Structure formats: C-alpha cells, structure tokens
C-alpha cells in the first residue's frame, strides 16, 4: 500500500455518474478576478456509493456545526452592509450561490426512497436525441407490497414532495391499486426537471396468453410525468405485447418508425439483433408507449435476459451519435463509465415532428441489496 498523501483543495465539483457520487477536488487557478468561469486544476477524483455519500453529508454537517457562526460572518463580508447583519444572524440560512435545483431534487428523491427502508432497484439511463446526450436520468423501483404503512399514501407523499400536479395525483390515487411495482423516475437537463411515477401491474398469465392469442397488447402500466420547470405533465400508457416472435418484434419496430428516420429503425433493429442466440425473442418484453397529450409513438424493449453489456452495442452507439450529431467526446466520456454495465432496455420512438430519440437503460443494481422479487 502506498502511504496516504495529504493534499489541500479549495474547490470541488460533485456529480452523479453511473449510480455513484463523483467528487472532484482541486484548486482555483489564478486570482479568479477576471470575468468568465473560474479555472480549477483538478487533483483528485473520488467515487462514492450513494449510501456512503449520505453518511458523508451527515458527517460534514456535524463537523461544520461548531463553525457555523464564523462561516456565516465570513460569507456576510461579501454582502452589502444592509444585508450583512441579517445574513450573519444565527438561525438564518447561510448565504450561498443558488442551489443546483436538479441535483437537489435528484438527491431528495434518492433520500426519500432510501428512507422507505425497503429493497429497491436503481437503474441509470441516458437519452440521445438531436444534438443532445442527456445522462442525468434514473429510475428507482420498489415492490408495492414492501412499502410500509399505506403504500399508496407513502408513495404519494414522495410525489407531493416533488410537487406532483393535482390532476396527476388524482389519477395516480385512482389507479394505485393496480400496482405490483412502483417506479420513481427522474430526468433533468438545462431546461427541465422531470419527475415520474410509474405504476406497473403484474399481468395475470391468462391475460397475457389471451393478449398473445388475439395479437393485441395488454396494459402493463401507467406513468405520470411532470416537469417542475415547464409546468407540463403527461400520462403515459405502457402496452405489453406478450410473447412476440423475432419477426413480430421487427414488424412492430417498423410500425413505430413508419414516419421516422430509416437510420433509427435500422439501429433499433440492429440492437435487437444483438440478442439473437442469447435469448429467445419471446423472453424479451416488448412494450409500446402511448401518451394522450401528444402523438409520440415509441417502444421499450427489455434486453436484460440477453445478458449483454453496454459495450456490446459500441458500434451502434457510434451510429446513434452520428445520427443525432452528438459530440464524440461527450459520448465517449459517458461510454467509458458505463461500458461494462449490463444493458437493460432500449426505448425509442418518433415525435409528431418526425424527430426521434433513443433511451438506453443500463446497470440495474439492488439497493441496499437485491433479493429478487421484481422483474
């Protein structure tokens, strides 16, 4: 073992990457008096599991408590004298830059689901669409039967903290009884912070067989999605087409992309091709997705049974990147971190304006540990 080196740092950046907290420490370079972003020379990068991160927050708060007054006084020096006296008063919120709203909301959701004290799944994803790669997305899944107390009330308490709109709340309440699994979703980019509640049914075997026999879909779940920034909300219906053969899945993909770019259909089909010889098509859950509020047509193909890794679709990720005009370095930075994660779902589709997208889900992990029970 190398001896521990002691280094000082006066700057840090924290991010959530591939299900872990990444903290970069460094030092501000130069006097920092010139306009524009401050330069920081990064010296260390530390990766923490979320649970360790939570303990770190508590420890930091404990360490800072004795110094709170002095820190407030120091921060107040930068304020106009009229505000300084108020800011330095005990009990006032410390003066600090505006919080990063998306990060705070994501952390809040992680904390609230963690506080349920039950096993849950954590799954990351990224969305790729025209000139954008959005990696700040995740899904938390719990078995509704494990939620302590009144599962519906506890679930909606979490949604209330995330400012779920009234209409969506009413619909979720009315449909909660159908839920075998509850998924809490989060995604954010520069313009939006979207929270999601999914209610997933356990479709009875006979119902699935009936749907298969008739060649019709059956409702697997509902999702309520609301944007904290844009004040918009949608309700999404997930329709499962049980037991589709490989040819039938290809036919359905062709239907989804009937008005969309051929290149994306080819990529979706090529991802599906990766599963050949690894899992029977009938073992891959194929869903189609409807939203009453818009004409988006999309699909979701669960690939976990094929036991692929993200790196197995490296070439197809290149094709997606080129199709959507995403910067190669941006995609590479994400790919480096997730390439050995299990490949989970491929979702994709076409908006009414003809623009399309893919969502790739990966690296499902059980927290605090997974003991089976769902999926």
């Amino acid at each position, binding site marked *: 073992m*190398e001896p521990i080196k002691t280094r000082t740092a006066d700057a840090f950046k924290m991010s959530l990457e591939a299900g872990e907290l990444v903290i970069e420490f460094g030092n501000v370079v130069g006097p920092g008096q010139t306009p524009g972003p401050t330069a920081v020379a990064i010296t260390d990068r530390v990766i923490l599991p979320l649970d360790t991160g939570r303990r770190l927050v508590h420890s930091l708060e404990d360490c800072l408590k004795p110094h709170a007054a002095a820190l407030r006084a120091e921060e107040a020096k930068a304020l106009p004298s009229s505000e300084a006296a108020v800011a330095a008063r005990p009990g006032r919120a410390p003066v600090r830059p505006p919080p990063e709203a998306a990060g705070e909301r994501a952390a809040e959701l992680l904390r609230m689901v963690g506080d349920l004290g039950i096993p849950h799944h954590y799954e990351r994803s990224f969305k790729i669409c025209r000139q954008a790669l959005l990696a700040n997305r995740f899904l938390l899944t719990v078995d509704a039967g494990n939620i302590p107390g009144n599962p519906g009330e506890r679930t909606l308490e979490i949604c209330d903290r995330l400012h779920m709109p009234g209409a969506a709340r009413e619909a979720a309440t009315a449909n909660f009884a159908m839920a075998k699994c509850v998924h809490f979703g989060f995604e954010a980019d520069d313009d939006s912070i979207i929270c999601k509640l999914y209610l997933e049914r356990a479709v009875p075997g006979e119902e699935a067989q009936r749907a298969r026999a008739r060649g019709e879909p059956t409702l697997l779940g509902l999702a309520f999605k609301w944007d904290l920034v844009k004040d918009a909300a949608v309700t999404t219906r997930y329709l499962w087409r049980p037991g589709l053969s490989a040819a039938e899945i290809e036919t359905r993909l062709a239907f989804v992309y009937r008005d969309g770019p051929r290149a994306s259909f080819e990529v979706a089909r090529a991802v599906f091709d990766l599963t050949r010889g690894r899992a029977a098509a009938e073992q891959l859950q194929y869903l189609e997705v409807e939203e009453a509020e818009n004409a988006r047509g999309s699909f979701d193909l669960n690939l976990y049974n094929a036991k692929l890794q993200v790196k197995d679709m*490296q070439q197809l990720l*290149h094709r997606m990147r080129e199709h959507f005009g995403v910067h190669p*370095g941006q995609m*590479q930075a994400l790919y480096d971190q997730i390439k050995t994660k299990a490949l989970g779902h491929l979702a994709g589709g076409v908006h009414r304006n003809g623009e399309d997208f893919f969502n790739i889900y990966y690296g499902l992990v059980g927290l605090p540990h997974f003991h089976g029970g769902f999926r």
Partner: protein
Amino acid sequence: MSGAHRFEYATAYDPSLNYCLWEYSPAAPAEDKFRSINLLLQSFDHAGIDGRAFEIVEAIREEIGAFRTVFGIKLLGNRLAWEFYFYDYARRRREVSITRVLSAVRPFLACDVPVNENLPYFMFSLDLDAELASGRRPLDVVHMYIGNPGSTVSSGIAYAVRAEGTWLENFYFFFDGHSQLDEAAAKICSSAHFDDTRRLVDEVLVPELCDCRTICVANKQTHDCVYFSGVDVDQLLVFLKRLGYPWPIIAFVQDNRANLDHLLFDVGFDYRMEGGALTVLKSGYYGVF
C-alpha cells in the same frame, strides 16, 4: 467487430501522456478528436490479427484503468508486431505489477515466466504478435526495466525474464530534445555499432524528428536504438514514410491528420552499421490507452 468500429474519441478529461506516461500539453484542442488508441486499433485491422488482440487490450484496461498502458506498434521487416508497456514508479510499492497484468491477460495469453515482485522494477513490457494473439504460442518473455543509479542522465536497464533465466537486454539514456542534442549525438557516436567517420550522425539523429521533447538512445546487445519523444502528427508522417510503413498505416494518419493533430507521438528505430551502411532493423511508434 473491427478496430474501426471501436474507435475512441478524446474527452475533456483525457490526460496527454507520452511513452513514459509523463504528461505533456496537447499540441491543439483535443476534445472530440481521436485518442491515440485508434492507431493501435487500425494497425490490428491492417494486420488482420486475431480478434482476441482487442480483448487483450480491453482486459488490460479493465484491470489497471485507462491511460496506464503504453502501446508500441513495430515494423520488423515487413511484419507488424506490438508491445505493451506498464509503468509504476512506486517500484516495490507498485500497484501495476507483472503478476497483476499477467493475471488479467491469462485467458488469452498463457505465460509461465516466473516473477519476482521483490525486484525494484519500475516498468515492464509484454510482446504481442499474430501467433500470441491467436493463442498458437505462449508468452515466453517479460521485459523488466530497472533504474540505473550512477548515470549522469536519466537512464534505465532492460532485462528479458524467461522461464530459463534472466538476460541483460538494453541500456537506455534520456536527453532533453532541445538543450542536450549534442550530448545525444555524442552518445550515438560512442558505440560499437556506429562509425561516425563513415556515416553522418544525422542519419540517426534525423533532423526532421529532432524537434521533439526528449531523445532516448539505447544500447542493445547487437545494435543501437534511438527514440524521439513528443513529435507531432506531421513528424509522425515523416517517420512512417521514411521507415517504409505499409501504405494503409501511412494513409490512415494522413487522412486523419486533423483528428490526430492534438497528440504528440513517440517514435524510434533500431539500427547498426552493416558493410558501411546504416541498416534499420526495426522501428516503432507509440501511444497510450
């Protein structure tokens, strides 16, 4: 999946490292351009090497992390071969050990070379060629590099470690490319393999390559070698053409010049005098993955 399908692109966080894993300032903005590993992947494609070569690269990187392995692409006669170099200057407190890397590549490369991790080596290297990659023969040598205390310039000694024993291979001497050019020339001329009364030292200290960061001169058992560290993409092209690399290798660099112009490369060639002429025995260019 071919090498081209595995191409990688520089991110905003990529370090710029030379063949000693010393950091340098990139020659141009790097983000979105090629990582140097693409040279390695393209050479695999050109050589038509067994697909296990790609898996060996991945296995090494997964074991010790990214940007910790130097690769060399070598031309021996008309055949390509490769070498991977590993550095850990912590010596006996090393994290990147021969044992660790051999363990990572064992599914692909059988190796019965005994390793003494108590030795103060700071670097080692493993060979790769078409036969090794396909599993047709085992890896029978590990090259181990040890410091050379007492030398007035930065220096190292290489040994070949085999199941049968350990043999002295090479001595390396490093010179600053700008301030120590004369010393490098003197070192080249102080050799049993080079007669500076019959050949100009410029044949070794190639003027087009001398504008670089570091020059290394090596004395090997049957010949000498010179390395130019920190040459730009145009100098790399000069090197590849001068040393007679296959046209697809040259064309790849030429066609992707704009994607490679942020990188500094390391190049070198082995030589000796034969019948009054300077003969190049092998050559190589280097990058990092």
